[in-house]
């Protein structure tokens, strides 16, 4: 508590001119004016009022309400609490209350007020985050607190962030000495990320020596940034490639292995995404404790749903059309219209929200590389799906039969394999894989009836570019197309980049009419 008091006293010395509602900061909170609310937050933090932390915290979670005559209440699970007294408030009529609204300026004031306090939190992550907040706010007022926090800090990682925060704050402080500033620039230069660049670029009116050091640091960060950007593009490319791979993997089975031109493939992906939505809603309604797990739970379910629909399609439609690939194309096109409209009738035309679990949100910084968790998860997921698919084809009895049937149907039938069932299961497998792709795509794209449409053309391109009938070809092709696209995009722009990829693909097919990895041998030639 003493630290808290000291900090507040120090804050008084540096904080902006006093707000009009300083006598009663709570009245400021109830004013409905964003400037007054921001001022009230700062004033409340200074006031030493024991209710300050609770009130500001409530504001952050949208739980603060203003009533008539500048009354301020906090909404809690057990009812209304008067913010001034911390006592339970009786007889509050919700219709008289208005939420205390927050805008970005207020949000920054909240971050600043809470941020400095948290430098002394018992949790290392909270301290690190607080230091990061100070780094971003570059508020010289936080310097004394930082100094003590650094002295007290045992965790090396948190400590280095605090040092960076101190550097940022000192650089923004006109009172700092040049020696300190030079040292600070070195610290920031070592941090070397985009925030560091932003901070250094914003330095103005510095002594010549400091300005030179800053310019050198900027140049150095920019140089390393350029090197990292290659790695970053590779990551983007892998990420795009993994999306393409997921979308195309199922098609590599149904189209590549079975030769069925399934225009409703995209709809299988869409069904997977909607399955994810339904799973999430069901879990949210009946087992909220599991909600972080809804994605892993959705994966097998999406496989089953899309797989079952796939088997139904094969039994009901496609089996009548074997040997007539182009008729299959038309019938499945009709089917895709029906499926889209069915989903539209069932779930409505608008997007459905599939939320991202906490463990997939945000990004990690690795050198100059930003790696977003959801993308990384999708890359890993894609690789796992394809590995499982290959293993299933190679090592399971079903896979063996599938290969036998696709290689020599009559011989397989003669050996007692029930080929119609194998056809249905193969098609179901391909569709199920598409369904799993839908789970991943729900994380980065719209969950709407049109979801599948956006991927069908790309999927066919990937399979054809890789070489029909070759799963490895599909893998190489997906990642190649992804990476080429992402290297072209910064140069040519998103649209031209995509056009270029398509043109290159057309030219490539002219050179190698059977894709990257054609199946060779007489069987194919005949």
């Amino acid at each position, binding site marked *: 508590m003493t630290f808290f008091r000291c900090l507040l006293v120090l804050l008084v010395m540096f904080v902006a001119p006093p707000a009009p509602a300083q006598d009663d900061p709570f009245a400021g909170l109830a004013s409905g004016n964003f400037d007054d609310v921001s001022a009230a937050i700062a004033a409340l933090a200074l006031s030493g009022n024991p209710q300050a932390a609770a009130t500001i915290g409530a504001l952050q979670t949208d739980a603060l309400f203003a009533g008539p005559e500048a009354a301020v209440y906090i909404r809690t699970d057990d009812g209304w609490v008067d913010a001034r007294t911390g006592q339970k408030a009786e007889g509050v009529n919700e219709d008289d209350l208005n939420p205390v609204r927050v805008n970005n300026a207020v949000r920054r004031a909240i971050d600043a007020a809470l941020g400095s306090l948290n430098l002394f939190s018992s949790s290392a992550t909270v301290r690190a985050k607080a230091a990061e907040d100070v780094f971003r706010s570059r508020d010289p007022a936080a310097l004394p607190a930082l100094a003590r926090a650094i002295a007290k800090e045992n965790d090396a990682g948190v400590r280095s962030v605090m040092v960076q925060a101190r550097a940022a704050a000192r650089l923004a402080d006109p009172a700092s000495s040049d020696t300190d500033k030079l040292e600070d620039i070195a610290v920031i230069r070592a941090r070397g990320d985009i925030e560091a660049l932003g901070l250094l670029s914003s330095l103005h009116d510095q002594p010549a020596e400091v300005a030179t050091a800053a310019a050198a640091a900027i140049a150095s960060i920019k140089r390393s940034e350029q090197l990292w950007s290659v790695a970053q593009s590779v990551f983007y490319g892998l990420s795009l490639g993994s999306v393409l791979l997921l979308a195309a993997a199922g098609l590599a089975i149904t189209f590549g292995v079975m030769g069925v031109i399934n225009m409703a493939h995209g709809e299988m992906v869409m069904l997977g995404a909607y399955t994810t939505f339904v799973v999430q809603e069901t879990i949210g309604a009946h087992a909220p404790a599991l909600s972080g797990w809804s994605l892993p739970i959705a994966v097998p379910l999406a496989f089953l749903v899309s797989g079952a629909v796939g088997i139904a399609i094969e039994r009901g439609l496609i089996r009548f059309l074997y040997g007539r690939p182009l008729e299959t194309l038309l019938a499945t096109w009709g089917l895709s219209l029906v499926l889209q409209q069915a989903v539209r009738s069932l779930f409505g035309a608008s997007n459905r929200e599939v939320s991202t679990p906490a463990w997939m949100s945000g990004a990690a910084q690795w050198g100059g590389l930003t790696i977003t968790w959801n993308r990384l998860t999708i890359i890993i997921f894609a690789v796992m799906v394809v590995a499982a698919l290959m293993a299933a084809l190679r090592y399971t009895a079903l896979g063996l039969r599938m290969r036998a049937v696709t290689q020599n149907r009559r011989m397989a039938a003669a050996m007692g394999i029930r080929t119609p069932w194998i056809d249905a299961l193969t098609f179901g497998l391909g569709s199920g894989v598409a369904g799993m792709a839908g789970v991943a795509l729900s994380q980065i794209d719209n969950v709407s009836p049109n979801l599948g449409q956006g991927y069908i053309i790309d999927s066919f391109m990937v399979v054809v570019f890789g070489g029909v009938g070759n799963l490895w070809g599909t893998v190489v092709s997906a990642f190649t197309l992804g990476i080429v696209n992402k290297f072209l995009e910064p140069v040519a722009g998103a649209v031209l980049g995509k056009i270029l990829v398509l043109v290159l693909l057309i030219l490539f097919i002219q050179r190698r009419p059977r894709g990257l990895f054609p199946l*060779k*041998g*007489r069987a194919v*030639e005949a």
Partner: protein
Amino acid sequence: MTRPHEDTLLYLDNVTVSFDGFRALNALSLVMERGEMRAVIGPNGAGKTTMMDVITGKTRPDEGAVIFGRDTDLTRLDEPAIAALGIGRKFQKPTVFEPLTVWDNFLLALAGDRRPQFTLWARETEAESDRIEAFLATTRLGDLRHRRAGDLSHGQKQWLEIGMLLAQDPQLLLVDEPVAGMTDAETAQTAELLREINRSHSVVVVEHDMDFVRALGVKVTVLHEGSVLSEGSIDHVGADPKVIEVYLGR
């Protein structure tokens, strides 16, 4: 590149073809005289069809040369160019143009200008009709002239295809398993037909059916694992211990 001698029509020199490491033809060399009929036999996978593919330009060899006539290297040409030189081919599975009539099948096969700018304006001439009539007679398909080729029986399709081959008027005919799936009577008739063709054309016959080969009574080349195992009359190769081992030994 030297040719063995003046009368050589086709000379395969050290031809090698491999698919994914599997050698379908392994340094195959073969000489054929003008006017000769040659039977090529061998177990499955011996490289018979691949040899035909190489001669007709469908497959490019990894090594070696195929010399046709005086000094034409077939490995540099594609299928239509080779066909234009006068090499005709009949496939193992009869492939005729099923939606077209028997008559039209012959019409398309007749030697003549193959370019689109010709066929677009071409009208059937008297001479063409006469020749088609002649082939209809040779192949005994006269009554079926207006039937769709797809409606013919298997044997009739085989004959139609051989007839179309004749209509091309090639110097060399490559015939792949002409009697597969035929009745004994049809087989005998086919052997007769081939001998008749051989009077004016050189012929290579690939066949499994030993009786048929014997009935042809021509020089036989035995292929095994992409190379020539033995060559000579049917009795000669039949007595060759290597041949016996390959055919009977496993």
